[in-house]
């Protein structure tokens, strides 16, 4: 199949994604799911808004899937990232990889999520149990939007 990368505003269906990468050639079919966690850095989280620069995020995701396909020797990589308001336990990202062998399937899955986190312009604003909301900055700097 053609490598597939999509931004969605509906719940992610992991089984449907797996179906896109399961082929007679693939002895290994694996799925990674990222989900909203109830605690981040000691603060109780009640939900997350995901926002994106959608045109660029879509093209970066497509580029990652296509690069991953060449790098790991499989055409069967599918990624969906959800945008909008998510609750705790909702799936934010799903990566399905099919490959003839498991070592390459695991490596490709790991590579795709790390590249996604490194370069796809998606942002998350966490909602905390105390009613506050903050954009998450994985570089550890104080958020530009945070109160001084």
């Amino acid at each position: 199949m053609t490598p597939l990368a999509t931004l969605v505003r509906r719940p992610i269906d992991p089984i449907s994604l797996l179906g896109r990468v399961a082929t007679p050639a693939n002895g290994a079919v694996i799925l990674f799911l990222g989900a909203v966690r109830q605690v981040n850095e000691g603060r109780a989280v009640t939900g997350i808004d995901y926002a994106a620069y959608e045109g660029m995020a879509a093209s970066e995701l497509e580029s990652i899937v296509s690069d991953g396909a060449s790098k790991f020797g499989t055409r069967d990589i599918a990624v969906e990232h959800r945008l909008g308001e998510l609750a705790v336990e909702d799936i934010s990202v799903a990566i399905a990889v099919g490959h003839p062998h498991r070592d390459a399937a695991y490596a490709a899955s790991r590579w795709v999520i790390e590249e996604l986190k490194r370069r796809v312009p998606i942002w998350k604003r966490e909602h905390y149990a105390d009613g506050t909301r903050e954009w998450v900055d994985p570089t550890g700097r104080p958020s530009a939007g945070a109160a001084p």
Partner: protein
Amino acid sequence: MYDATLLMTVTVLLFASYADALGAASLDLEMPSDTTVTQVVAAVRARPGAQRLPAAPLVAVNLQYANGDRVVRDGDEVALIPPVAGG
């Protein structure tokens, strides 16, 4: 003929914490026609609220990451990219 005084309007897209800091999702800036990404960033950082942006934020031109010396042309889509947090 080259005219150093020629101005163009550059639209800069802002997202997430940067949009909050500047109170806008986009800015229209009057810039010289031979401007660079670094000069566009400097113009944004002169706006109220922008002191909370880093000195050298990530920038994309036409949906691709761009270096500071990239020349911005009339009609280019410029975006300041806060630290990404997908996944």
